[in-house]
């Protein structure tokens, strides 16, 4: 099955949106969630989630708390903050603007 690299610059958006939808997730769940919802089309280099999550921690968009998984293993669960929600809105409108523009360019006769 063919998988596409995620478009550059959208990783934050994907993580933010995933967290907004599902509440608390740990890294593996975020990766899984993105792939599942995109019908396995969007391929994240899974490890690159972690530097991105670190940057989001610094920015204060997400917080991380340690908890236990269903399999009784320790995992860091990420949760959206108020700043993160705001950022999601920003990223979304930016994304829509870009996509809209791209669409207009390719649909123009």
């Amino acid at each position, binding site marked *: 099955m063919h998988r596409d690299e995620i478009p550059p610059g959208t990783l934050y958006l994907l993580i933010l949106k995933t967290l907004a939808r599902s509440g608390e997730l*740990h*890294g*593996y769940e975020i*990766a899984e969630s993105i792939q599942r919802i995109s019908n396995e089309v969007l391929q994240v*280099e*899974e*490890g*690159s989630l*972690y*530097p991105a999550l*670190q*940057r989001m*921690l*610094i*920015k*204060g968009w997400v917080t991380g708390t*340690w908890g236990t*998984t269903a399999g009784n*293993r*320790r*995992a*860091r669960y990420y949760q959206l903050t108020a700043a993160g929600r705001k950022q999601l809105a920003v990223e979304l409108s930016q994304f829509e603007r870009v996509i809209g523009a791209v669409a207009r360019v390719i649909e123009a006769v």
Partner: protein
Amino acid sequence: MNWLRELGRRLNMLLHRRQFDADLEEEMRLHLELRGEQQVESGVAANDASAAARRRFGNPTVLREKSRSAWGWEWLEDFFQDLNYGLRGMARSAGITVMALLSLALGIGANTAIFTLVDAVLLKSLPVNEPSQLVLFGNGLDEGISDGFPNRWLYSYPFYREMQKRNDVFSDVAAAFSMIDKVHGFVQGRSEAEPMNVQLVSGTYFPMLGVQPVIGRAITEVDDRTQGGHPAAMVSYAWWTHNLARDPSVLDKKLTLGSTSYSIVGVAPAEFFGTKVGESPDIWIPLSMQKEVPPGFDGYNDNLFESLHLMARLKPGVSNAQATAEANVLYQQILRGFSGVPLNKKTLRELDETHVELTSMATGFSRLRYMFSEPLKILMAVVGLVLLIACANIANLLLARSATRARELAVRQALGAGRSRLIRQLLTESLMLALAGGALGIAFASVASRLLLRMVSDGRMPLHLNVALDTRVLLFTVMVTLATALLFGTIPAFRSTRVQVTDSLKEGRGQTAGSSRGPLAKALVVLQVALSLVLLVGAGLFVSALMNLSNMDTGFNKENVIRLRVDPSSAGYKEDTRMENLYHQIEQRVSALPGVRAASFSIFTFNEGTWNNSVWVQGYPEGRRDVAVHHNAVGDGYFAAMGIPVLAGRTFGPQDSATSPKVGVIGETMARTLFPVGSPIGRHYGRGGPDHAGDIEVIGVVKDVKYNSLDEEQQPGDYLPYSQNVRYLNDFEVRYSGDSAAMVAAIRQAIHDVDFTLPVSDVTTLNEQVARSITNQRLVAQLSSFFGVLAVFLSCIGIYGLMSYVVSRRTNEIGVRMALGAEPADVLWLVMRESLWLAAVGTAIGVPVALASQGLVVSMLFGLRPYDPLTLVGAVVVLLGMAALAGYLPSRRASQIDPMISLRYQ
């Protein structure tokens, strides 16, 4: 505020780095495990599952690095790593490190010490409110009481009051007596008179400056209203500390000066030393009390008693130009309106031509600045050059070290270290070296600046300067240190990281491309030699100028004369017959002591200021006058005590008394200028106007003497007997033979036998007094010699280091040469030739630079022709000699190489 919270999170991470690493590690491990399990579930073989998980995950090491760098502390970690690495490296080559540290410490320390003095004398702002608004009338160089009208440097008290009242450009005007009164007074309850430096100030002085006392109140306008009515004194913090041990009940104490008792009303803050840099009064007393403070100046109501320095604070928004314009208008109005001023054709013309300048007083004012600014600038340049030479040395040492480290650096580059990372590491090492050197330098400077102060304080007046290391000085040192690190660190860092990795790795441990270092290292050594030559020539010039000065004929015999000060004014004597008798009695008693050849009082001996005004000669046509003559009032034994030869006529004796005709003894130059025809003996002259031309009869002519400095032109001067000019006499000089300490004790005893209350102070010798007049020149000569020698020494180390390095690099080649039949002498010459060549090129560059820079210091070069050839040749010979010696040692080692051993030395 967002960035602040973000910084907080970053800092938190920095403080919990271990926890952070562990968390990340665990998170990633969990991810890989879960992915592995998921793979197994979806049917992948257990063996392949974890590999697949890894493939999907990416390179964990890189990801960890990325995550960590997101927090932005990488540079700090690198820095500590470099630091650690650098320390180990320095410890490995301890010899080089010690050498580098020593020269840095000396260089930075010397710069700091000189800067401390430059800062204290030239740069530091007065510790008062808004110092930039303060202006001084005139330049503050004149001190004393002037009877020349009009004067634009010294002002009378009534003038100050008028200026204060009439102007509308200054928020206030203040005045301070232009000299400090050196009196002997009593602290209440003590029986011993103590020397006190008293500064008379107007009531507006402290309020205008905005100086708040730490205890009590300042002297204010209420203390300066009626003449003689305000016995209030403010004391300095230093005086309070030293004389009263910071007694908190200081305000209950009283001081007795002359016959008046003063209440202490306040203590000035510690940092306030007055407005004149280099002086620091112990006690401030309102000008209203000037007649009560010995020696009893009487200028409170005298329009013509021009004796004050006038200062003012500009109103906000008023420019210096506006204030100057207004001050000049008022100056003319006030002086022309004064009663009693001699407004004749001549003074009116002079008034028309007089323009008062307002100079900024932000950094205070001082004669000191006038005296020392040039020597200090010269010394600053000298130590700057020495530091440059030291830097060149260290750069060379680092270059040598980096050449031997070429392999190590190549290995690191091969392993993936970026060039910028390596440069950063090398610079960190340089910085460490510089910082350590700087720290040592500060320790060195704190001792050296005190020593320096002692050297300059040797002058006519003891200097009161604060040379403690303050933040300004430390800031300067830090800047210098960083600059040195950049100077000596940059070139080696860039040079040694520009390595062809494969070449370096291919080469053996013993043989790297030494030649690539050659031209740069040689250029550095040439630079060192050139700079040292400049310094050496400078030092030579200053020393010979000093010798010329010391050998000047003073006109008097400075050997075997004790000179001290007796202060009858503080013991209650007035300028009258009683005091004249006191002087006579002391002279007689001291002259009768065994071993004393002559003793006399006088106003001056040498380098103590002057009393000069114009004289009129009888028989000259009207208007022919205008020769300023140095006066001195002296006792009968003065010429014998000073050893001034009498050329014609007689000197003073008992026959010259207050009632006998007025007489004077004149110097050769005065005789030549004013009495060109015939013998001056029996002729008449006078001062104070044409009407007085017949006042004084010339009875003798003596040899010319120097008055204020050894390099002054010969000037006309006369001597008057103090019996006919009764006034306070500052100096008592005694020509003696034998032991000086015993003599001083005997003289003291004799004086106290006459009157035991007389304070005796400032005991010194005439020789010492002459030496003090050239403190400046001696300071520059001594320090520039020291640094010149240091510079040559550092350059020799440079040559030695380079040649040793060259020899060790060429051991192989030399071995081959010797195996092929070269004699040791040939090898010796081979290496020597190179070091001599370097020294010669350096000299060739240094000579024109030295010649060109002589023009900058020409005023310090008394008695030398410009481009003094002797000094130049001497410096070149010394330098080449030292360079030859420095080159000889490695050369000899080269000539002793055993070809067998050297060829095995791969």
